[in-house]
């Protein structure tokens, strides 16, 4: 696929249509809008809700190893299963789910390129049947935290400019003009961005049909902002799902070695006591 560094992490809608019923394949829909699945989904797909099944609902955190094992077991997934994840908003929360599956060492997890939007636009079959799955006893690997950035690392990166910080939110969120995506509740005390961060909105990595741009286009996009693999990269957004999309692009489509997702993102940094923020448009966006 389009000369990506790791093409094995993507499947097409065609591939999914042909393989969704394979015994070793589990297709999962993960949407921002958790009602979308009920309207109709890829036949055989199960659903994970990002707000209840892909996070710890008590402490702000990703799933613990035990919670991840329970999710996989109840989804009929074994370590040998090929997990194919897709969703709305060009795979925002599908990428979030894939990121956690990679953290816990699931060997074969892929995104369906173009997500739910492409499946619908192509007029492919939709089912409203929720499949029954046979429970497994999944054992996850220990968390690979080299894929995740925590606040102290981000503070260090911002202060020393030791890593490239990529803000994948909209230009208006980056500048501080708005505190959340238009229409969504404001969830921070300050607008702006982490000092030193570059603005590369996540959506620039996608074509109009929801698929990822070619490797050449992606390389040009990020290299144009200085993201070329010469330094570690930390991606962030508001709550970490849009940045997991960019993390996926940088790590698997472009093959950069050291890319982390800062899931604390702006809802952590923008609420920190004593943290500096920068305001204003990105250099290239200023008139």
């Amino acid at each position, binding site marked *: 696929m389009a000369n990506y560094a790791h093409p094995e992490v993507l499947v097409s809608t065609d591939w999914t249509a042909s393989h969704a019923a394979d015994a070793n394949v589990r297709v999962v829909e993960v949407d*921002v*809008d958790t*009602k*979308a699945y009920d*309207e*109709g989904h890829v036949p055989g797909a199960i659903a994970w809700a990002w707000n209840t099944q892909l996070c710890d609902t008590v402490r702000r955190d990703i799933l613990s190893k035990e919670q991840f094992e329970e999710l996989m077991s109840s989804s009929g997934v074994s370590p040998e299963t090929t997990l194919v994840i897709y969703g*709305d*908003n*060009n795979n*925002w929360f599908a990428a979030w789910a894939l990121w956690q599956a990679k953290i816990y060492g699931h060997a074969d997890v892929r995104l369906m390129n173009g997500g739910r*939007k492409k*499946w*619908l*636009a192509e*007029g*492919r*079959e*939709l*089912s*409203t049947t929720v499949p029954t799955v046979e429970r497994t006893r999944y054992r996850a690997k220990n968390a690979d935290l080299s894929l995740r950035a925590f606040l102290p690392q981000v503070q260090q990166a911002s202060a020393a400019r030791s890593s490239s910080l990529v803000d994948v*939110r*909209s*230009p*208006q*969120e980056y*500048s*501080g*003009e*708005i*505190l*959340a*995506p*238009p*229409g*969504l509740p*404001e969830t921070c005390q300050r*607008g*702006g961005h982490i000092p030193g961060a570059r603005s590369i*909105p*996540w*959506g620039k990595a996608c074509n109009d049909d929801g698929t990822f741009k070619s490797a050449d286009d992606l390389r040009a996009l990020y290299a144009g902002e200085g993201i070329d693999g010469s330094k570690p990269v930390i991606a962030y957004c508001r709550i970490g799902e*849009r940045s997991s999309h960019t993390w996926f692009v940088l790590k698997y489509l472009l093959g950069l070695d050291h890319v982390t997702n800062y899931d604390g993102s702006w809802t952590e940094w923008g609420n920190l006591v004593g943290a500096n923020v920068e*305001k*204003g*448009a990105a250099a290239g966006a200023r008139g």
Partner: protein
Amino acid sequence: MNAEEYRERRIEVAGWPVNLASYRLGAEWHSTADNVSPGAGLARTTGATREEAEEKAVKRAEELLSRTKRHPV
């Protein structure tokens, strides 16, 4: 069941760009509205016609988008 007559277009609602999609599932029309740049979903609606479903989605999007505050930078 298949999504039929899928259509997407860009419109402006309350001063913000919105991506409005609509399609038919069986006898029912479905519409979704999302804000283009961040891509966040704003509305998911249904109706007996495309126009009805889209009108509901735009109305809901307008309710949400009109509450968005612009802060001085």
